[in-house]
Every structure is written in structure tokens, then in C-alpha cells.
């Protein structure tokens, strides 16, 4: 009996322990994640508008629109990147003005001349429509923040540029360089600034920073011996050109011919 009593005491303690344990574990126990529901809500006009947000945006929007709709020049014909096998009027225009305007900076800074300019067909994001040309037009054609850069390339890499253009079969914007695609799909009669390509010469090639870093598989730019960032956005090149001229003149000269 005495033995049992002693045991009772132990059991009582055990019960208290169990109780405390269960209370303790209850309070420490995290919530159980019981159910998850996932869905996607489209943001449409059905959601309605928020007056305070609308009112907050308005002055920003008005300022931008006023600036973007500022007429800078006139374009007598629509320039489209989809009209031309090896060159397009809009592509040639972009490459020409990047070479010309980039050279103003490059010459002043480095006392050298840009020899040629290569951009990418995919980088032209809109057409240049007939009619008034505004700042908005420049933003639509060049929405990205790409800078104009100049890479010093050996003559060997100029061959790579020609091979790249032939392989990609796209009218890549090109200025300062001409060549003929031979029947065997190789480049011949490569001319830079009107002179035959000299494989031992260093050429200064303008492009954008995206391509200079190997974008669109333009790997030849990695072989450059020098790189100059002109800190001049391509879009600003375009805006400055539009501000300078009254009427946009699309270049018609042929840069790449097929044999």
C-alpha cells in the first residue's frame, strides 16, 4: 500500500508533466497550413479606377506627352525595316546618323575617326511613319537605353562582320562599309570608307553597348583591342538628328549587293 502511494505521487507528477507538456507544445506549435488557393486576376477596366492615383499620375503624364508630341522634323515617306533584303532605308539612316553624330564625339575626344557603324536589325523597334516626326517617334524606334560605343577591330574582324551578315540573312544596319556577296556565299570587294579592306589595319567600329557585349551573337566585338563608350544614347542620336534637319532624307545608296 505504501509502495503504491509512492507510485501514485509519481504518477500525479507525470500527469502534471504531461499536461504542462501538452500546453507548452500547444503554444509552441506553429499553425498548420491547411489549404492554398491560387489564381490570376486580370487587370482590366472592370476593376474601375482610383481617383487619387489618376490625379497623381496626371501631371507626370501631361508633361511627358507635351514633350513627346513636340514636332522635330518632317518625314516625306514611311521608312520600314521590313522592306529590303540586305539593307533598309530606316536601317541605313540609323547607321549613317550614328556614324556621323558619334564621330562628332569620338573625334573631339580621341582625335580619331569612326570608320564604320554596325547595328542590329532587331534593335529597330518601330517604323518611321510619313508625316510629322516627334520625340515620341524616337522613343518608339529606340525604346532601350543603349549607348553608342566604338570598338577598335582588326581587319580580320571586319571579315567576321561580313560573314555574320551573310549568315544571319538580315538587313543589318550598316554604314561606312560595302561588300558583295559572292555566289558561294562569301564576301568580296569589301570596302571601308571607299578603300579596300586592309587586314593589318585597325578600324574604329561604332555600335551599341548591347552588341559590343556580344548581343545577337556578334562575338567578333569581343576581339576588339580598345573600347570607347561615347555616353551617347542611340535614342538621343536620333532625337538630335531630327532636331537638326527639317526633312528626314532616307539614304538610298546600296551597301551590300549580291553577285
Amino acid at each position, binding site marked *: 500500500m505504501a509502495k*503504491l502511494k509512492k507510485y501514485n505521487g509519481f504518477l500525479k507528477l507525470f500527469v502534471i508533466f504531461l499536461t504542462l507538456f501538452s500546453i507548452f507544445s500547444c503554444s509552441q506549435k506553429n*499553425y498548420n497550413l491547411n489549404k492554398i*488557393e*491560387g*489564381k490570376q486576376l486580370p487587370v482590366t477596366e472592370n476593376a474601375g479606377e482610383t481617383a487619387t492615383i489618376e490625379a497623381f499620375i496626371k501631371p507626370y503624364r501631361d508633361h511627358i506627352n507635351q514633350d513627346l508630341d513636340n514636332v522635330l522634323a518632317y518625314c516625306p515617306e514611311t521608312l520600314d525595316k521590313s522592306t529590303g533584303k540586305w539593307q533598309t532605308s530606316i536601317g541605313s539612316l540609323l547607321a549613317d546618323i550614328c556614324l556621323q553624330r558619334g564621330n562628332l564625339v569620338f573625334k573631339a575626344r580621341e582625335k580619331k575617326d569612326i570608320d564604320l557603324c554596325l547595328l542590329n536589325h532587331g534593335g529597330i523597334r518601330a517604323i518611321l511613319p510619313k508625316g510629322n516626326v516627334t520625340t515620341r517617334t524616337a*522613343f518608339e524606334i529606340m525604346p532601350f537605353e543603349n549607348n553608342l560605343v566604338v570598338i577598335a577591330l582588326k581587319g580580320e574582324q571586319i571579315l567576321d562582320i561580313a560573314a555574320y551578315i551573310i549568315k544571319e540573312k538580315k538587313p543589318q544596319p550598316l554604314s561606312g562599309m560595302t561588300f558583295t556577296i559572292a555566289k558561294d556565299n562569301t564576301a568580296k570587294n569589301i570596302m571601308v570608307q571607299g578603300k579596300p579592306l586592309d587586314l593589318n589595319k585597325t578600324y574604329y567600329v561604332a555600335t551599341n553597348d548591347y552588341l559590343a557585349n556580344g548581343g545577337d551573337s556578334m562575338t567578333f566585338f569581343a576581339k576588339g583591342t580598345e573600347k570607347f*563608350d561615347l555616353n551617347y544614347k542611340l535614342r538621343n542620336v536620333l532625337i538630335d538628328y531630327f532636331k537638326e534637319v527639317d526633312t528626314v532624307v532616307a539614304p538610298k545608296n546600296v551597301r551590300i549587293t549580291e553577285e
Partner: protein
Amino acid sequence: MKRREFIEKTAASTALLSLGLSLSSFGTNDIKHLTILHTNDVHSHIDPFPADDPRNPNKGGVSRRAALIESIRKENPNLLLLDAGDIFQGTPYFNYYGGELEFKLMSMMKYDASTIGNHDFDNGLDGLYAQLPHATFDFINSNYDFKNTVMDGHVKPYKIFNKNGIKVGVFGVGIELQGLVDKKLYLETVYNNPVEIAQDMTKLLKQEQKCDLVICLSHLGYKYKDDPEKISDLKFAEQTQDIDLIIGGHTHTFLDKPTVVKNKAGKDVLVNQVGCYGINLGRIDFYFDKDKAHTNQGTTIVV
């Protein structure tokens, strides 16, 4: 004889006690409901797309998104509003104001946190830093080391939100910057392996801090078909554990519904992404209880 009787009695009273406790503290009224709303890759799309847009006519718009969020807040105020990065770049609003308006509007909508996408570096670290005063929400990223940059101390590796008794741990992972972002924009920012960082984060948030829910804001991208070796949300989900939800971005992926992936421990993890440009708002509802009977039943996922 008596001894057995006592033990039986004790057992009964213990059972009664625990039953009583269950009824009081594990009652059915103790259900917690947490709503997560999320966006990604809004890319400065403040105005809705015009009605004549060939791809997304009349879709999106911050003013409408704000209205939608507000209506959901009314339905359940226990809510977290999150973004998975690439707030910047895509419309003239960014070109003209450098992200000021984007941050101000997100603050007005009461965003709780955002991670950092590659395009958020587009005006350089200085450009991002300059806009920080306009954001009332936190920037969370765990795998970029900003120690030697102007952003040092302005990006949290994680944050724990206490939402009506539910502890929510949020951390963030960003994409490899080299080759994607110009070095002159990200400067001395160091990219660390997101899977390794996630191990530290989940250990801290789930095991040490005992978070009820762990969310990862990711700008790794959903999946890379042409580069299966590249880390993506789907791979990240498989290689980690103790994450309940991965909110993704970068690849502008439109999903019909959130993807359920088995993680390293064989448990389900939800991966979601809602396209881009503020066209959609993601909504994930979590229901918690303290009913012991549910402890080992797992979680019902309705997607």
C-alpha cells in the same frame, strides 16, 4: 487492482484534460486567412495599353490595379502585396523620371516588399539609390552582396512579417548579372549562388525563426528551355526546401495557374509568375488552423 484503477482514472483524466485543451485552444474559430497579392516585370507600365494595341489592348494600368487591390483588402485586410522585380524600364515614365513615379505609386498602393530585377539596375546603382526615398516598401534580396556599393544597407536579405499571428518570412533571389547587365551599372555588386543562399535563409526563417510561411521573391526566371543548366524557378524549387511559395519574374511567363513542384524534401512548393506589364495580379490565399488532427494531413492546394 487499485493500482490499475488509478492508472485508468489518470489516463482518463489526462485524456479529458487534453480534450478540454483542444476544445479551448485548438477551436474551429482559430482559422487564419492570409492573402498574398503579387506582380512582376511591370516595367514602368503606369498607363493601360491603348485600345488599339495589337497585343494587350486596354489591359493593365496602375489606377485599375490599385482599385483591384483595394477591393481585395476590403475582403481580407490580412494581406501582403509583393513584387518580383523589374519595376523599371519600358515606357517614357522611366526615361523621364528615373523610376520616381513607379516607386511613389507602389507606395500609394501599400506594397510591402519587392525584390530587385536586372532592369532595376538600368540607371546604375546610383540611379536606383536616388529613387529609394520614394519607396515606403522594403527591397529584399539575399544573394546580391552590395557591401562595396552605394546600396549597402538599403537592401534587406530577408524580412519577417507578422500578419495577424501568422509569421511570414520573405527572402529574395536575383539573377546572375554578368553578361546580362553592363558592369558599369552594377559595379561591385557580387552575385552569390541562389540555391546556397536559400539554404541559409530557409534554415534561419523556418527552423530558427519558426515562420509559418516562407516566401521567396525570385527574379531568376521561370524556365530556360534552351539552357536547361541555367538556374530557374523550377530548378530552384526542386533544389531547395522549406519554401512554400516562389513568386517569380524575369521571363515574362504567363501561366494558366501556379505550378506545383516537389522540393528537395519531397514536399510541394508553389511557383507562380503573372506575365508582365501589370496586365495581371497574382493572388494566393493561405488558410491556417491549429487543429491537431490536420497536422499530418498535408496541405490541400487548389489552383
